[in-house]
């Protein structure tokens, strides 16, 4: 399996090169502030879509309350830096842990539900979190928590994104990850394979929520403000759309979905009235032409370009 280690290293080197190029372009101001902002946003969206893919795509538990965990991370992080005056690193950890812990608490009862019921429950929970925040004066209530220092920059967001991508990829290719896949495929059969389904469902949900929390801290420390209006259920649907567009259960799909949709939004920023129309047409075409998403549940890898390749669902190891 040393080939795997080699592949990981190669991917890391590729990431480092990508990072160097982007950073260089930003320093040389070939990439202006507008696109720099969007690149940071892409990275945050990738974190969100990849972590939602862990819950929806790999474990098959249809959750649509991801914006709620994003909000918890954003606010917890902001409290740590603004109100308590601790460091950014601590804020990142606190936001991650807080969202993960909440995910664990919420996951225990709700993951007994399945299908539409779970979707509705998580949708409701996402809204409950937002409404709660809206009514807490300590964090600014409806006007949001302002004056957050801009501590997030491109290197931070990029390397955290890479870390999370690797984390989830390695998780998927381990025994616990396979248990999650088994639950998605057939819960009854998974049970008879000696898999404690509740445990793995809660595990995936907690991890997904925790990473959404990380994204939240990055988010609020880039845009100076944590505002309840940024965490409505529309935000949850945005993330879900990215995952579904790329293909549920495909990590490369989730990444592509996040990049594509953030770009479309950015390009259409000048024509806000057209944005939703083009957005929805894209989705309708996709649903008609490719209901399983761009990549289905396969991973994009170099093998796909070889004849007869791309069949290896089990060893699909890619970014």
């Amino acid at each position, binding site marked *: *399996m*040393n080939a*795997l*280690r080699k592949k*990981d290293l190669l991917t890391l080197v590729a990431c480092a090169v990508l990072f160097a190029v982007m950073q260089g372009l930003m320093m040389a101001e070939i990439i202006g502030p507008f696109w720099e902002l969007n690149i940071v946003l892409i990275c945050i969206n990738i974190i969100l879509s990849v972590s939602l893919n862990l819950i929806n795509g790999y474990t098959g538990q249809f959750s649509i309350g991801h914006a709620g965990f994003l909000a918890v991370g954003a606010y917890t992080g902001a409290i740590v830096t603004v109100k308590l005056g601790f460091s950014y690193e601590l804020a990142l950890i606190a936001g991650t842990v807080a969202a993960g812990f909440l995910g664990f608490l919420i996951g225990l009862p709700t993951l007994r539900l399945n299908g539409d019921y779970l979707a509705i429950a998580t949708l409701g929970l996402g809204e409950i979190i937002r409404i709660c925040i809206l009514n807490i004066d300590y964090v600014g209530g409806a006007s949001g928590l302002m004056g957050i220092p801009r501590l997030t920059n491109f290197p931070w967001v990029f390397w955290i994104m890479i870390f999370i991508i690797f*984390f989830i990829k*390695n*998780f998927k*290719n*381990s*025994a*616990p*990850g*396979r*248990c999650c*896949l*088994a639950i998605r*495929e*057939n819960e*009854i*059969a*998974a*049970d*008879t*394979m*000696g*898999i*404690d*389904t509740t445990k793995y469902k809660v595990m995936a949900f907690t991890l997904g929520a925790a990473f959404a929390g990380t994204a939240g801290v990055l988010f609020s420390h880039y845009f100076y403000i944590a505002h309840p209006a940024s965490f409505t259920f529309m935000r949850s649907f945005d993330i879900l759309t990215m995952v579904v567009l790329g293909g549920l259960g495909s990590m490369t799909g989730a990444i592509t979905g996040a990049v594509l949709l953030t770009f479309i939004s950015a390009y259409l920023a000048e024509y806000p009235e057209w944005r939703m129309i083009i957005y929805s047409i894209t989705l309708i075409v996709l649903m008609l032409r490719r209901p399983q998403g761009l990549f289905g*549940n396969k991973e994009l890898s170099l093998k796909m370009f070889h004849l007869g390749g791309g*069949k*290896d*669902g*089990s*060893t699909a190891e890619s970014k």
Partner: protein
Amino acid sequence: MEALLKVNDISMVFGGLRAVSNFSMEIKAGELIGLIGPNGAGKTTAFNMITGVYTPTEGEIMFNGTRTSGKKSYQVTQLGMARTFQNIRLFSELSVIDNVKIAYNMHVKYTLGEAIARVGRYFSEEDEITKKALELLKIFKLEDKAYETAKNLPYGEQRRLEIARALATEPKLLLLDEPAAGMNPQETKELMEMIRWIRDKFRLSILLIEHDMGLVMGVCERIYVLEYGFCIASGTPDEIKNNKRVIEAYLGEEVS
């Protein structure tokens, strides 16, 4: 010798329906037992109680010295009981080898942290699992298809894969729910030999639900017969064949 599985007087009541009434059975290590009965006799319900899908409303089940009635299905599996399903339940979108690898999850010792960081025991154990899974697939003549998606296999191979997957949990008792369903006589015959061979090779006990009388009579050492939830007979195949109540249950009573 102490029995491997001891079912004491179990009953299952669904609302007003008594699906299984006061059913008892005993399986010793290495035995091959059949459970038969007409449609709706409660065979699968009995199966589900033994494997922990249902908790019996009355009675208790002892497996390998542990009380399993009331335990959850996955806990029962962890104690060493594996099953297959009447309607095949594979992890259909995953590859054949992944189906088997999943079954090894109970024996994995590396921690989540080691898997994420890819250090320590992760690589050696993953190698080990892959090797074991391939060996098992080879036994079931599926090694050529190890990386195909499970749902694309022909029916007979899906059945074999399901049995292979159950064996990967390294059980002491294997329960097969109508393994010959949908098979032609030739395939059934092969299956019969395979069942006996599995028992000897993996040194386990097998409990079998089956409609195909030829298969049951040919392969089982003892047979239990259920009708309307009651156990009406038990004994060797010859005893069962000549049992008046069994004949009545299957062919109806003689008109006098």
